[in-house]
Structures are given as C-alpha cells and as structure tokens.
C-alpha cells in the first residue's frame, strides 16, 4: 500500500520544482490566516507584526523540523516537551545568574539534547522497541529526573546573554528590529532544506516508506534513523534556548509541546508512519498553528474554546488530506 504511494513522492521530488505532496493545502490555509490577521489586528499592518509572530512561532517551527525527521522516517518523538522543560531547568540551575557560565552552558545544553536523542534512537533501532514507547518512557524519566535533581521546583536563573537569543534582536533599516530567533530560524530552515535534498535526507524519507527495501538496497537504516532522533533532540535543545529566553524559567515551559509539534507536522501534510511530506510544509504547519492561536486571541475567543477549535481543525485538515489521497490511490490502483 505504502509502496504504491512512495513512487509518486519520489518523482515529485525530482528535477522539476514542484510542491511536495500535501504542501499546497497548508500554504493556502497559512495565507488565508495571515490575510485574516492583517484585517483583524492593527499590529499586522506592518512587517513588525509578522516578525513578532515569527519570533513567537520560532521555537515550535524549530521543534517541527526535528520532529519531521523522526516522523518521516516512520517514528514518533514524544519526549521533546519534557526535554525542553529539562533543558531550561538545567540551564537555569547551571548558570544561576552567572554571565560567564553562559559560554559553556549553551554547548552543554545542545549536547545534552543530542545525547537524549541518541539514547532514544539507539533503544529504538538496537533494542527494537517502538519509538512511541521509547520516547514515552523517556518523557517519564526526564520529567522525574529533572525534578528529582532540582528538588521539586526549578531554581537558579538564566543570564542576560543566554536570554538574548530568544528575546532580543538587532536593528535593520526598512523592517525595524529583526529578532535573533528569526535569523536563527532562517539559518536552520536553509540547513534543513539542504539536508533533505542530500542523500541522507532522501534516505530518511525512503526508510519511512519502506525500511526493508532500503536495507536490501544497502542503506544504513539504523544509523540514519538514530540520526533523526539525535536531530530531534538537538532541535528541542535549540527550542529550549529560545523559549527560556522568551518566557523565562518555569517547570511548565514544555508542557504539551510534544503533541502540539506533532499536530503541526501533521497539519503540514506529513503522514504519520513516514515516507511522505516535506520539511518546509512541516514548518508551515507550525507557523499555521501559531497564526491560528494569534487570530483566535485577536477575535477574543477564550482559552477554553481555543483547544476545541484546534481539535476540529487538525481532524478536518488530516481528513481532507487523506480522503483526497485515498481517491488518488483508488484511481491508480484500478488503472
């Protein structure tokens, strides 16, 4: 079944610059939301408003890049939410207001994220435990371990220079202040797109589509899948640096992020189970979700109904995408 679909994806990623399968709907929804924002909020009549939106959305979009790698190769990473919390709490405890410590804490935080990803990946690929369970277990372990270490409530403080990336920006003529986080996001987007165009990126999609075929083709399935988890862990670390700067230290900073980012990736047309979808669409999904939250806020829809609307929208979006796809499949199957 998936094999039949796979052929269409790979031709789509060929020489012709065509949007990957499932990208168009999310871009259309995003465009509608952005236009709606411009009409409802006076802040969105100039670039600064959209830059602020991008700044808010940057952590989720970066998480979406990492989660995309895992999902497209056929896995789940449920541990990113608690990993973000863990990273922020650890950074605050290690820095404890000391400016000089920032320099080694940021690499340490990134390394810790990669290490957690490596553990997730190795258990998934070597011990053959489904990634859903591995990362669920990791979620429990991280949640417990961090608070065991800090004794129940986060202590310490982040330094100003640590918070700078998430909070501040630099002045650019024309568009006003450009946040550092947006610059970082742009760099990561370019890196992710280049990665997905390279051999390893293509193998990642191929593994999600048909792992056995890749193995018979001589691909290093285990190594590449582990790499996906390492990248996801690292993306959580980067998101934690941004969120810690943006929102400060709290024990709830990563709550529910794992489900939100999976929602975002799926909203971007990436299929759970792997093998389909593009990384740009996954990020567009994350931006769409944040734009939706901003719009609901502007329209004065209370926090409660916000999640109801979110629920309806993700079901509708995925239903639209999969009903459309199954029609396509039947036609192809019968011909």
């Amino acid at each position: 079944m998936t094999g039949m679909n796979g052929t269409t994806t790979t031709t789509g990623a060929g020489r012709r610059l065509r949007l990957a399968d499932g990208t168009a709907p999310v871009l259309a929804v995003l465009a509608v939301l952005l236009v709606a924002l411009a009409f409802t909020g006076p802040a969105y009549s100039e670039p600064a408003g959209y830059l602020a939106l991008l700044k808010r959305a940057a952590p989720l979009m970066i998480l979406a890049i990492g989660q995309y790698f895992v999902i497209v190769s056929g896995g789940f990473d449920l541990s990113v939410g608690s990993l973000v919390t863990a990273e922020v709490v650890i950074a605050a405890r290690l820095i404890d207001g000391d400016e000089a410590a920032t320099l080694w804490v940021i690499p340490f935080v990134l390394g810790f994220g990669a290490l957690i990803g490596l553990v997730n990946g190795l258990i998934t690929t070597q011990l053959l435990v489904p990634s859903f369970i591995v990362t669920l277990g990791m979620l429990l372990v991280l949640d417990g371990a961090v608070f065991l270490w800090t004794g129940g409530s986060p202590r310490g403080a982040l330094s100003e220079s640590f918070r700078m990336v998430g909070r501040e920006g630099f002045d650019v003529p024309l568009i006003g202040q450009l946040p550092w986080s947006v610059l970082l996001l742009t760099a990561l987007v370019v890196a992710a797109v280049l990665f997905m165009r390279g051999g390893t990126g293509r193998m990642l999609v191929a593994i999600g589509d048909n792992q056995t075929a890749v193995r018979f083709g001589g691909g290093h399935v285990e190594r590449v899948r582990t790499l996906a988890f390492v990248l996801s862990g690292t993306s959580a670390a980067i998101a934690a640096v941004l969120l810690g700067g943006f929102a400060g230290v709290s024990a709830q900073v990563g709550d529910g992020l794992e489900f939100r980012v999976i929602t975002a990736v799926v909203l971007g047309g990436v299929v759970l189970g792997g093998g389909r979808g593009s990384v740009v669409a996954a990020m567009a999904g994350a931006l769409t979700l944040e734009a939706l939250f901003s719009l609901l806020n502007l329209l004065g829809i209370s926090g409660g109904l916000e999640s109801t609307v979110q629920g309806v929208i993700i079901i509708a979006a995925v239903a639209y995408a999969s009903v459309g796809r199954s029609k396509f499949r039947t036609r192809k199957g019968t011909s």
Partner: protein
Amino acid sequence: MSAATLVRTRPQWTRFATPAVSVYVALVLLLVVGSVLVGARGGMLLDQGGILNILTRSTALGLVAIGQTMVILTGKLDLSVAYLIGLCSLIGAETMAGDPGMILPAVLLTLACAAGVGLVNGLVVTKLKVNAFIATLGMALIIRGYLENAYTGPAGEVPRVFQHLGYDRIGPVPISALLMLALAALAWWFLTRTRGGYHLYAVGGDEEVARFSGIRTDRVVVLAHVLCSVAAGLAGLFLASRLGSGAPWVGTDAGYDLESIAAVVLGGTLLAGGRGGVAGTIGGVLILATLDTTFDDLGVTPFFKDVVRGAVLIAAVALYARRRGLR
C-alpha cells in the same frame, strides 16, 4: 545475525513464557522484592492497607486499560480517554445531583455519552481515514476545550448510596476492584471466545488481509473505539463515586491517556496490534500500582517514581521485542 542458532538452542520451557505469563512472574518478583524492602524498614507491603491501596489504584487505571487494550489490539490507539474520564465524571455527578433515584439514569446517560464519543472517534478513523493518533488527539482537544470553557472546578454531587461503590470492600478487597476484574474477565471471554474478538485480532494483524477475508474491518474498529470509550466512562463514574463529585481534570491529572497505553504495552500487547490480551494488561496495571504503593511505603519522592516507571516500560518492551526476535 545469530538469530538462527539461538532459535535452535532455545530451551523447551520458554514455549510457555508468553508475555502474559512473564508479566505475572514479574509481578510476583516485584511483590517479593517490595515486601523485603518495605519489611527492612519495619513496614509491611501486603498488609490489609497495602492490598487495599494496590487494588484501589488499579481499579480506575484497569478500567481504562481494558478498553485501551481493545483499541490497541486493532492497531489504533486512543489519546482522548483522559479528558473523557473527566467529562464522564461530571456528566454522572451532575445528573445525579445528590438524588439516589437518579443513579440509574445518570449511569446510562454517562455511558451513552461515552459511547457517542467512541462512535465519533471510530467513524473519524474509519470513514474519514484519519490516523487514530490524530483523530483521538483532536477529540481530546475538543473535550478539553469544552471542559475549560464550562467548568472551573468540581461540580455535581453524588448521592451517598453511589459512594458505596467506591468505598465498600470485602476484607481488604474493594468491591469496585472485583467489578473491574469481572469486566476484565468479560473482555477476556470476548477476545478469546467470540467471533467479534477474533475479528479484533485479525484487523490488528493485517487490516487488508482481514478485509479480503470478508471481515467488515470498519465496524470492528468502530466497535473497539466504542468499547474503549465506554470503559473510560466507567472509570469516570468510579472516580466520581470516590470523589463525591465530578472533577474536570481527574483524568488528565493522573495522565490516564499515556498511563493506560503504558500499562497495555507493559502487559505484552503489541502497539502495532494483533497480539496480546487483557490478562497481560491487568498484570501491567497491577505492576504499576504495586510500584507506586511500594515507593509510597518506602517514602521515596514522587519524582523518582516517574523515572523508574519510564525505565521499567522501556526495559519490558525491549525484552518482549528481543524474545520475538528469537522466535
């Protein structure tokens, strides 16, 4: 790799070491180790209070996990149960409103609402072809939005008669735990002795093959979702009877969504579906409850529990995967 040689050298007795059996062996080992550890500190794990504690903890999670087993056996999963439990506790308690005469209508109404949610879940999964993960996550968000919008705290009141359900016991065994076990037995009978149960396994094993064999796979999946939601509804009613009122966050605070999936998988059911059963699930639930009770008796901080739980979950599934690899 070395799988072929290992298969040949496998001792005969491991034939009986199905996951369900090894879960109970692990449970007994855990009880022994726990008793020794608690005994070393001058306490007693399996005294009247301890047994009561373990069984009470197991009841709500057990009810949810029985339903979750059905869904997971078909290769889907249900993330909406935690919010549904809160919703059902509220529907039950508000309909009863302290009036003993309203117990039966309230129970029926609650279970009907739960079944309705399960029906929607099942139809979205089968007719709209939405991945169960997304469909039930969306349903969870929808229920959460309603709960956040309509409630600020506990609401409704359960009559005293209904509270007997949560608190009465025979010796150290709560009645509610016996009812949960009876439901588990019923589910076991359904899964292993009826045509519907076989269909559940067939759909989980390979949905395409099941369809070609003449099984109406859509109906089977919808049925599994309905049963799962009704089980969550029962858990909501049980919790309402324990608390004396309905509470919107009673299901999410205990994390029954992921916890129930953990219990099912710990009990040896494959997350991909098609293999496993209710007996293992109950073993998994009892292991989680025993771990909690032991740590409480030892006075370990609650955070350490999470760490151990996560490690146990990964280790158990790794062992199952290894054994299947050898087979």
